[in-house]
């Protein structure tokens, strides 16, 4: 199912701490149209702990959250 989702933009925020990873996510989301999908790569720990809740609170939808081979995370966000 998730293989069918092709993100409209990808932002690699590995090695980017909080809150700049959220700032970058918001910048990328601002460039997209409603319904388009952003894939953002986040480190384990605080980044994956904080960013999904923050973007959800702003009304966007988390479509998928999956662990990558290097231990980081891929987050698919559909713009509100």
């Amino acid at each position, binding site marked *: 199912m998730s293989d069918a989702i092709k993100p409209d933009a990808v932002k690699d925020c590995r090695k980017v701490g909080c809150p*700049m990873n959220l700032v970058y996510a918001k*910048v990328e989301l*601002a460039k997209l149209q409603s319904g388009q999908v952003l894939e953002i790569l986040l480190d384990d720990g605080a980044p994956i702990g904080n960013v999904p809740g923050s973007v959800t609170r702003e009304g966007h939808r988390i479509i998928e959250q999956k662990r990558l081979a290097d231990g980081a995370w891929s987050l698919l966000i559909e713009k509100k």
Partner: protein
Amino acid sequence: MLDFTSEQLERYSRHILLQDVGVEGQEKLLEGKVLIVGAGGLGCPIGLYLAAAGVGTIGIVDCDTVDISNLQRQIAHYTADIGRAKVESAKEKMLAINPGVTVRTYQEYLSAENIRAIIRDYDFVVDGTDNFPTKFLVNDACGMEGIPFSHGGILRFDGQTMTVLPGESACYRCVFREPPPPDAVPTCSQAGVLGAIAGMLGTIQAAEALKFLTGAGSLLTDTLLTFNAKNMDFRKIRLTRQKDCPLCGENPTISELSDNVRPACGLQEKSVRQACDAGH
């Protein structure tokens, strides 16, 4: 959409993180133009915060020079600035905080002759003047030009502010018809003022300017906010537009601007004129 540099993203990150500001709001700030009338107790914190916020173009009007008695509250001016033009002193500190903004200085006295041409180029005006005639002049000129503005005033331990959207919300003349007679209300130099309340009121006015530019929240329109710092009492007084307002009412009687006698803080009218004419 503007391309933010990574430095800008870091500088403005705390705005971008705010849901009500975000990337779009910060862009509006960078494209915004705000005029500050007065580089004194109110104008100093207003100028510093608007520059820090990244308001793209900030104008600042003041004909005066820095005096040692200003330093107790006019926080953009330092001891070494005594004798310098206030607009130049303020501009230097604003650009030191944020070199990415443009600061335009007007070292002149706002008058009926020059005010409309000066304010016309701005999105929002912030009144940080120290005398009633200029406050009425700012209100009338902004009303005629249709430019939103923030009124502010401080004395002793008291502050008051309201935001005016001309044609939509109550204006200063809806509340206060005419300037009080000279000497009816003392000036700061006569009555004194607690230094920190300049920051309290000026930062409220700066916040109103930022909210206006970004569209965040609701403005202090149809509302007079007053405080007394002695007891830290804050009060909001509801206002409504007045049909018989001489400026924005149904049958306005004010169709052109006029200069009145204006007692400035610490300066008599005559010496203000002379100081400005001499270009101090």
